[in-house]
């Protein structure tokens, strides 16, 4: 109806023009981009930060030449040097740190120390640990006097990476990635939670504002209370969607710009390693996929992940997300509107907020658990119950959900949402005109039974 459109427009325009909205809309993507880009930048900086490490042993040379140099670090084996002396001078001599290996290391796994002024990077530690571990294993094997041990060792060296495949109803086998499903489940569940909660609470604040400033009485002499309530709820939903679309778009844009300007200097191989795969443009992806035959293992890994991401049921995810967003948001926002109408100011909302917050938080927790175990019966039931299903079902979908379950969940959702909006409208209609006395649950129950 025309009047609802006028209300929606006002709710939308006044919010979108607010300074806080503009600042949040611009700032959040900058932060997001920083979170994505920073690790890459840090990794690049480490490349330039070359480390020289002195390796010292106590009167033995069991581990001489065991730790190979890497592009970040050089390991210099110092013979006939005492750690105590070196500790005072290593910095002046140009060393980043001292790796002190005790001959007892073969028997005592932690008899090795890395002494440095700064916290050493994890990559460096892993490199040292792996090298030493292999050498110790080799030396232990040596004790068994096996012939051609070095050759055998080379032969048996293997890296294992589990390839997961899923068979769908038609029997076609698709490559999947539990990692991507988990990320997706998390992102979808959390996005739903944010939309429902943050913007639902905005609806409540809007209602309280209208009630305390007494605007509401003027407005509902022009439109029906239900029209005002729905106009507000829809207007704020559009604000939320606008903000999320801008966030996604801006984050992508900033990341792309930074990537092309900053990272171009280093060679392409490293870029593809360090930039998260999801942020590469589709052109690059296509190019990578085309070269799968000849490309390096890292690139092959990325192209595989890309294929897996594309194998997600995107059509279903998008349809379900839109459905659950609309119904879930409407359900909670109408409850929030009813709460806002029943109180005189925001501090009074506490007693009514708890019963609303609990199912949302609970749903988010179940959604997190769903990432670990998508088939659990708790996840199943919570994806059916309308108060939790928008969040939990979205977290389940990337792992595959039978269609009948989605259908049942959606039907339950629709029935409940209509019921909630109807009840909320009744409470709202009475609540917005009640001033002065503190509202109790009993009072709200009475309002539900009032006639027109």
């Amino acid at each position, binding site marked *: 109806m025309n009047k609802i459109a*006028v209300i929606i427009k006002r709710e939308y325009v*006044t919010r979108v023009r607010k300074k806080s909205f503009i600042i949040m809309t611009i700032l959040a993507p900058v932060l997001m981009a920083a979170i994505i880009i920073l690790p890459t930048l840090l990794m690049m900086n480490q490349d330039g930060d070359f480390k020289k490490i002195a390796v010292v042993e106590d009167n033995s040379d069991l581990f001489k030449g065991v730790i190979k140099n890497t592009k970040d670090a050089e390991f210099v084996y110092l013979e006939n040097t005492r750690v105590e002396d070196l500790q005072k001078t290593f910095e002046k001599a140009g060393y980043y740190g001292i790796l002190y290996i005790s001959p007892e290391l073969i028997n005592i796994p932690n008899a090795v120390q890395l002494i440095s002024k700064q916290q050493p990077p994890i990559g460096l530690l892993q490199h040292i640990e792996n090298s030493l571990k292999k050498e110790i294993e080799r030396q232990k094997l040596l004790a068994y006097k096996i012939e051609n041990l070095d050759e055998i060792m080379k032969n048996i060296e293997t890296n294992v990476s589990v390839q997961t495949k899923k068979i769908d109803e038609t029997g076609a086998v698709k490559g999947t990635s539990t990692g991507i499903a988990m990320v997706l489940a998390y992102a979808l569940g959390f996005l739903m939670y944010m939309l429902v909660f943050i913007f639902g609470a905005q609806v409540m604040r809007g209602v309280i504002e209208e009630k305390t400033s007494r*605007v509401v009485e003027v407005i509902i002499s022009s439109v029906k209370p239900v029209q005002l309530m729905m106009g507000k709820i829809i207007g704020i939903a559009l604000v939320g969607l606008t903000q999320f679309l801008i966030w996604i778009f801006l984050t992508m844009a900033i990341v792309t710009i930074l990537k092309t300007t900053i990272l171009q200097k280093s060679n392409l191989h490293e870029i593809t390693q360090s930039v998260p795969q999801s942020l590469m443009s589709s052109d690059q992806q296509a190019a990578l996929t085309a070269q799968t035959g000849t490309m390096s293992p890292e690139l092959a890994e990325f192209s595989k992940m890309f294929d897996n991401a594309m194998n997600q049921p995107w059509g279903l995810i998008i349809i379900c997300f839109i459905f659950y967003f609309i119904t879930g948001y409407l359900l909670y926002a109408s409850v929030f509107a009813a709460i806002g109408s029943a109180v005189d100011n925001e501090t009074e909302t506490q007693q009514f907020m708890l019963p609303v917050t609990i199912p949302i938080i609970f749903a988010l927790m179940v959604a997190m658990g769903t990432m670990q175990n998508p088939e659990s019966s708790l996840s199943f039931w919570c994806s059916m119950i309308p108060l939790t299903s928008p969040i939990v079902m979205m977290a389940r979908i990337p792992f595959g959900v039978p269609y009948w379950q989605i259908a049942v969940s959606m039907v339950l959702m629709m029935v409940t949402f209509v019921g909630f909006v109807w009840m909320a409208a009744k409470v709202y209609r009475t609540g917005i005109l009640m001033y002065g006395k503190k509202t109790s649950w009993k009072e709200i129950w009475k309002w539900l039974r009032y006639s027109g």
Partner: protein
Amino acid sequence: MSLFEAKNVTKQYGDQLALDKVSISVPEQCIYGLLGPNGAGKTTLIRIINQITGPDSGELFLNGKKLMPEDVQHIGYLPEERGLYKKMKVGEQALYFARLKGLSKAEAMKRLKYWFKKLDIIEWWGKKIEELSKGMAQKVQFVTTVLHEPKLLIFDEPFTGFDPLNTNIIKNEILYLRERGATIIFSTHNMESVEELCDNITLIDKAKTILEGSVHEIRSRWAANEYDLVFDGDVKIEGNGHFNILNQQKEKNISVIRLKTTSSITTNDILQTVMKSGNLVSFNPAMPSMNEIFIRVIESRG
């Protein structure tokens, strides 16, 4: 013919009866006073007329036809508790309310410009409500109430918050609107403005109608047999078998006396009697103020 009619309207909130078979009939182009002590049920009746809430029983008619939801565009309502969005700009806000009443954007703009100029508030167009004084905001709200040129206007305490100058401006605007064909329901505790503006009134107390009719007729009815006399200088009159003296007062160089007749004596007879006492300056039938009537009626009910 009456423009608006309410018949036997009853409304109950829980155990509390807010309106008990209240009927009012508002003639066209009339300024109709809705009076009553606090909590009498006036606001409930006004809300029912505005269709903000529905009555439990009873019927409402606008122009002889049953009141319908679409009729809100023929009604303008200025609530007692004024409400505007504090953070919204004056012009935008006025436009928003006009659009909610069903005016097109162009038409609303045209009328807003006219009214803003008329009330000399055009320079506030781009200001936020929170920057305005209370009286200024009231003027804006008045404009939003009358902008869609409703047939029926409902003003709940329209003069609170205005200085005498602005009160006068708004009073004249109300009279002007009536001249242009609007019918006005006017709720107030300010009895002077009732005497000045209202043609008819209804007095509601404890959910019931207790007094109804034209202001003139009610005042004359309550005035029954009382007269005000003014003499030059210091004059005293004694009561006789035909009248009692209710009140004698000396003010500067005149004396003001109120008497009440006790028999069917004519005014000529009274004059003949009292003229002997001194130089009579004026002689009037005493009209009790609406204020007196209001207090007497409510107090007599306990």
